[in-house]
């Protein structure tokens, strides 16, 4: 990895990286791509900070991966870094998606194309799940309560489709209570 003389990540590298994620993330799964490129392959963030940034991105309104990208761009290169990263993430796929819509909207109705796209989306979902499992493992750090909270959120929102905002609020309160209890017991 190339760093600038003062040890900062070059803006060019941010632009190329987020541009690549924007253009290659077929079927979705962008958060998993961001995790792979900024935590697994580059030492820019550790799992703990990634999760903290992801939490902030999820709580705030707007696309989660856009919010996450703004956090990371800002963290690495300040306001300009945030701007460069988010523009690189959004503008290339914006142009591409319009070209796709102009050229091959009718292709989407084809059964084989439809099944192939479903397969790609399922593959991207598997990639996202792997980051979820890894992150949950990192969040546990040898404790049991984070596992209970994480699995509870997956069951409530992913499987039972409870409404997002009240469910997350309840899960957060439960997590605070459990973390507090674990802390006082440890003393």
């Amino acid at each position, binding site marked *: 990895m190339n760093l600038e003389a003062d040890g900062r990540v070059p803006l060019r590298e941010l632009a190329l990286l987020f541009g690549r994620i924007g253009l290659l993330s077929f079927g979705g799964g962008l958060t998993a791509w961001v995790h792979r490129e900024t935590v697994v392959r580059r030492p820019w963030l550790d799992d703990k900070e990634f999760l*903290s940034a992801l939490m902030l991105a999820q709580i*705030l309104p707007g696309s989660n991966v*856009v919010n996450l990208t703004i956090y990371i761009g800002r963290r690495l290169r300040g306001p300009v870094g945030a701007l460069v990263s988010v523009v690189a993430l959004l503008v290339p796929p914006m142009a591409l998606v319009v070209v796709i819509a102009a050229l091959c909207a009718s292709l989407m109705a084809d059964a084989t194309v439809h099944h192939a796209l479903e397969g790609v989306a399922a*593959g991207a979902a598997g*990639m996202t799940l792997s980051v*979820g499992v890894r992150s*949950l493992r990192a969040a546990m750090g040898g404790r049991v309560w984070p596992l209970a909270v994480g699995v509870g959120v997956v069951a409530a929102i*992913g499987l039972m489709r409870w409404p997002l905002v009240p469910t997350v609020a309840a899960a957060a309160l439960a997590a605070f209570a459990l973390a507090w209890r674990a802390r006082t017991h440890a003393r």
Partner: protein
Amino acid sequence: MRASVLWDLAAVFAPLSLLAFGGGQSIVADIDHQALAHGWMTQAQFVDLFAISRAAPGPGALLATLVGWKAAGWVGAAVASLALFVPSSLLAYAMAALWRRFDGHPAAHAIETALAPVAAGLLAAGAVAVVRASSGSLVVWAIAGVALAIFMARPKLNPLAVLAAAGAAGALLG
């Protein structure tokens, strides 16, 4: 006429920007409703655009770009995109700055520790919701399961190879 379409696009998407809790999915129904009410497209055209926004690379929120393009060409695409992404992005920037100011504070540490599993669970729940929103067939679940196993075993593997194989599996078995 044209200016009024652009104004309508901004007026539809800018408020939705700050209402899109839980990512882009929560506002799809409202975008659909508004696109039809303004006469920008038919329901069938909206379904096509939605499918393209999911399949193409980039965030699903690029649906807004497509709706803007359908309503008013490239300028419409730019206006709708800016209206959807700028307000929430400014808020995210401000909150990221605020959050970093409390870095290292004991209360911030306690919040991070408590909410980390919620964030991980939400990420996984989003992936489960994507699979369920598709045909949800056994093949689709199997592809997601195999991809999960591969990415757990080899986190540094290039995802494109796995995604291409997943697409081929979907086409052949689906």
